[in-house]
């Protein structure tokens, strides 16, 4: 009896091992998934024949695509709605895999999977300089030549195109983000404040709020790595205004960070807010969610963040949406005002996608750039920025703060530095946290940022470092 049990166990073990090794290859999963879904697919196909007008060419029943992304919350639901619409349209099946919502972590996961040949069929990726980390020429399907690429606006297509080969790698997945100051209009009205156009005016407003009320002048959610970096990264608009080639020259080590006055002002601004006591008592405990709610309720007057804050407000304090307004992060003079933007991350298609799935995957990429899929997206969340697609208008219910922020994108804007240079040390968030809580002066911080970045550049093997 014992022998029998041992043999059965061994057999089971071997079988499960074999299962493990094959599940890694996308081909097998597709076949398995396909077999499971045929029936469901047949059903959908049946009641679809009359409904599908623009894409009657698409019938992919029996095909399963694996999609991985690192988005959470409403936007993740919006993706699901898009995928459901595609499934209904084509009979294909989409399996979603959620990666870590920490950008560095999910990026790392994808890189490791790229190195071991385990990438999903489609995945969400950061774009700009970071796109290079995953060696797009080896791993990402070149979309150039697809006629539907004209759906994507030029400024986006530009940063996802390889300048040398002309290869186009991704399509936008979400909406763009605009960084600036979000303020509570009621507080501003009650206290009779004007919208500041210089940093001095901004500080003067803070002072009035501090002395004239119990309200925190500027909510600073330094609890997370992303919350602590926004103000500093948003300053990049003024940096590139001072020197349009800043990122390029820095990557080539032709200049030092501390030489740029505009760059230093980013640190000074954070330090000012701490030194003059315009933040809440313990910024390190303040989460982004709490800060958003405080802004909407008028417990805090201002918050330097990105337009995605409006999605958080919509979820947690919807009654406060109309109280919130937007103005650009002020700098030294009122003539050069502008905003920094984050381009939406994109969907990348696996270059080594199995032949039988290729057509379906391309169809999904095309579908994601159409108004039809954006409609599905908007059923789940109100967009907080531009989709970067031609012929797609923002719905009517977009908040006024987002509209105001978008109007600055056309007037004066620049994507943040990470789209032009990937050099960024592993301690950036910590260093900024220390500036924002008074442990470092801007001068101490810049020395350490430079050292930290140098190590990162050396590790990336960037020439000249």
């Amino acid at each position: 009896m014992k022998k029998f049990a041992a043999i059965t166990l061994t057999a089971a073990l071997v079988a499960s091992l074999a299962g493990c090794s094959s599940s890694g290859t996308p081909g097998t999963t597709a076949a398995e998934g396909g077999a499971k879904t045929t029936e469901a697919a047949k059903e959908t196909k049946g009641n679809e024949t009359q409904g599908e007008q623009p894409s009657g060419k698409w019938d992919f029943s029996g095909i399963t695509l694996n999609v991985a992304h690192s988005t959470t919350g409403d936007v993740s639901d919006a993706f699901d709605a898009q995928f459901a619409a595609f499934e209904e349209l084509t009979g294909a099946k989409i399996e979603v895999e959620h990666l870590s919502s920490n950008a560095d972590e999910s990026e790392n996961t994808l890189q490791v999977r790229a190195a071991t040949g385990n990438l999903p069929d489609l995945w969400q990726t950061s774009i700009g300089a970071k796109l290079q980390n995953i060696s797009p020429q080896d791993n990402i399907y070149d979309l150039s030549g697809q006629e539907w690429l004209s759906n994507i606006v030029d400024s986006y297509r530009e940063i996802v195109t390889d300048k040398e080969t002309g290869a186009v790698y991704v399509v936008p997945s979400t909406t763009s983000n605009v960084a600036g100051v979000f303020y509570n209009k009621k507080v501003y009205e009650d206290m009779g404040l004007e919208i500041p156009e210089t940093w001095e005016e901004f500080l003067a407003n803070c002072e009035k709020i501090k002395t004239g009320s119990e309200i925190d002048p500027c909510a600073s959610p330094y609890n997370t790595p992303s919350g602590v970096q926004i103000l500093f990264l948003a300053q990049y608009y003024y940096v590139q205004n001072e020197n349009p080639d800043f990122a390029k020259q820095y990557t080539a080590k032709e200049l030092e960070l501390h030489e740029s006055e505009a760059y230093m002002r980013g640190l000074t601004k954070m330090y000012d807010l701490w030194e003059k006591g315009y933040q809440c008592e313990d910024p390190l405990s303040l989460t982004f969610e709490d800060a958003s709610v405080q802004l909407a309720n008028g417990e805090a007057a201002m918050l330097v963040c990105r337009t995605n804050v409006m999605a958080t407000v919509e979820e947690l304090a919807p009654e406060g949406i109309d109280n919130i307004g937007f103005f650009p992060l002020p700098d030294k003079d009122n003539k050069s005002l502008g905003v920094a933007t984050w381009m939406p991350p994109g969907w990348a298609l696996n270059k080594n996608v199995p032949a039988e799935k290729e057509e379906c995957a391309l169809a999904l990429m095309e579908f994601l750039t159409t108004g039809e899929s954006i409609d599905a997206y908007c059923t789940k969340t109100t967009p907080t920025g531009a989709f970067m697609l031609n012929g797609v208008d923002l719905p009517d219910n977009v908040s006024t703060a987002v509209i105001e922020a978008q109007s600055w994108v056309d007037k004066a804007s620049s994507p943040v530095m990470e789209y032009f240079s990937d050099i960024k040390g592993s301690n950036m968030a910590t260093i900024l946290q220390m500036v924002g809580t008074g442990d470092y002066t801007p001068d101490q911080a810049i020395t350490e940022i430079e050292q930290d970045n140098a190590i990162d550049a050396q590790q990336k093997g960037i020439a000249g470092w």
Partner: protein
Amino acid sequence: MNKKRYPMWLAVPGLLIYITIFVIPTFASFYFSMTTWNLKSSVFTGFENFISFFTMTSTRSALINTAIYATVTCSAKVILGLLIAQYVCSGIRTGNYLKIVVFFPTLLGNVVIGTAFQSVLDPGGIVNQALTGAGLPVVRFLTDKTIALATCCAIDIWKGLGTAVIIFVAGLSAIPRDYYEASAIDGATGRKNFTRITLPLIIPTINTVLTLSLIGGLRDYDLIYTLTGGGPGYSTEVIGSVVYKLFSRGSYGLATAGNVILFVIVSIIVFPLNSFVSKWEERL
């Protein structure tokens, strides 16, 4: 018995597994720690990674913090663990119940504990509500850099004490009752029993707990990382969290170098400590 009972080739499968999952990765990591590496190609750079690692500001704090964290948690686990085990084994009626209570935190994952304590110790969390209710000021357990590391230590002790107690209980119950009976006849009392009988006989167990919790403390990062993320500033940065941050930034070569350094530190401390305790045991 001259004839071997099993042929040597029976060791081959085990040896193969051992070599592929232990020996090769270990030596590979020694090699990659001396390169800049993007997972696909690597460039040999000699000892540059080790120099970079030690010049980083975060590492200097991390080395000190790791030393403090490992020493404090390990000694607390040994001392408190032994005392609690002694109490639990002293024949009190609630002994078994106490064992379970003390062991319970060990069942929870580090990340769960970290996340839970983050909200419990928040300035608006229940601990601070209790403090303000009692008329005391709010304590920023995790965001005040002077006490953040102490908070992490305390939570780790709370979590790891259970394992120590269980090992000590096993060690204590292995001591034959005869010794105590004999000493009772000779008129020895509680304290003498402890220093002359219990302590000498429990030293192998102390050695085990000491080694395990010291290694654990030196390598620990997940609890600290979920509690504070290494902050505020570098005040709770440990080698593990520095390595983690480097890995997630894609600096694989440098991160591997950090791991090799951690490996060397653990070996340098643990092996001599082990033989020191064994010698101490012989002397007693």
